[in-house]
C-alpha cells in the first residue's frame, strides 16, 4: 500500500507540495508555540498545567484548520486537473491511477498540512511535560520550552536550506532571526 501511495504522490508531484506544507505549517505551529510561551513568560508566573492546556488548545486548532483547509483546496484542485485531463484523453479516468490520485492525494496532503504544526507543538511542549512528570530541567520548564521552540525553528530553517541547496547554517540562522524578532515583539507588547 505504501508503494501505491508513493506512486500516486509521484504521479501528481504531490511530494513537493507536501514538503512545502510540512515546512510552512510546521513553521506556523512552532511560531505559535513560541508566541504563546513568550506571552506566558512576560506575564506573572503561570502554572505549568495552564500553559500546557493553552498550547495544546492552540495546537489542536492549528491541526484542524490545517486538515480542513488543505483537504478542501487540494480536492478542488485535483478534481479540476482530472476533468481537464479527461477532456484531453477523451475518456473517463475515475478508475485509473489519476482518479485514485484525485481521491487520495488531497487526504494525504491534508494529513501533512494538519499534523505538521501538531508535531512541532508537541515537540516544543516536551519540557513542560517533563517538568510535570517531575524530571528536573537545567532551566525552568517555560524557559526550556522557549529554547526548544528556537531550536525547532532553526532546524526547520536548516531543513529548508538542504532542500533548496543553500548552506543549512545560513538558512537556519534566518529562521532563528525571525523567531527572535517574534519573541522580541511579544516581550515588548507584554510589558
Amino acid at each position, binding site marked *: 500500500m505504501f508503494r501505491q501511495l508513493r506512486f500516486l504522490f509521484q504521479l501528481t508531484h504531490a511530494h513537493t507540495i507536501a514538503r512545502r506544507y510540512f515546512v510552512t505549517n510546521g513553521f506556523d505551529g512552532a511560531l505559535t508555540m513560541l508566541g504563546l510561551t513568550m506571552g506566558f513568560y512576560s506575564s506573572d508566573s503561570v502554572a505549568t498545567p495552564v500553559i500546557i492546556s493553552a498550547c495544546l488548545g492552540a495546537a489542536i486548532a492549528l491541526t484542524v484548520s490545517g486538515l480542513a483547509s488543505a483537504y478542501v483546496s487540494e480536492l478542488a484542485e485535483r478534481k479540476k486537473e482530472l476533468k481537464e485531463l479527461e477532456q484531453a484523453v477523451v475518456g473517463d479516468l475515475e478508475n485509473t*491511477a489519476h482518479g485514485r490520485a484525485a481521491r487520495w492525494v488531497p487526504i494525504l496532503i491534508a494529513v501533512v498540512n494538519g499534523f505538521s504544526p501538531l508535531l512541532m507543538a508537541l515537540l516544543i511542549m516536551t519540557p513542560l511535560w517533563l517538568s510535570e512528570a517531575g524530571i528536573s530541567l537545567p532551566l525552568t520548564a517555560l524557559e526550556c520550552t522557549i529554547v526548544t521552540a528556537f531550536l525547532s525553528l532553526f532546524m526547520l530553517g536548516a531543513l529548508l536550506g538542504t532542500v533548496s541547496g543553500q548552506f543549512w547554517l545560513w538558512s537556519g540562522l534566518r529562521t532563528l532571526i525571525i523567531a527572535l524578532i517574534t519573541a522580541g515583539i511579544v516581550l515588548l507588547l507584554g510589558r
Partner: protein
Amino acid sequence: MSLIKRVVLDVLKPHQPNALEFAGVIADRHSGCRVKVMVTEVDEKTETTVVTIESNDIPYQAIVDTITGLGASIHSIDEVEVSSTPQPEA
C-alpha cells in the same frame, strides 16, 4: 491456440507517468514482457506513443487493463505477431 509474440500499439497517455515509469509499470506487472515506449507527439496534457511489447506469450487483455489503468487509451493495434502452438501428435 495461438500465442501473441509481439504487439505494437498506438497509445495516447497523460504526461504522468512519464514514458520510463509507464514502461516500467507494464514490465513490472507482466513478467517476461519486453516493453518499448516511443513518444511520437507531445501536446499540452498528453503525449502520443508507440508501445511495443514482446514476449513468449503476451497476456493482451491484462496489458490493456494496465495501460488504461495508468490513464492511457489505446487508439489502435498497429502491428501484431502471433504464432500457433504446435499441435500434439495424435
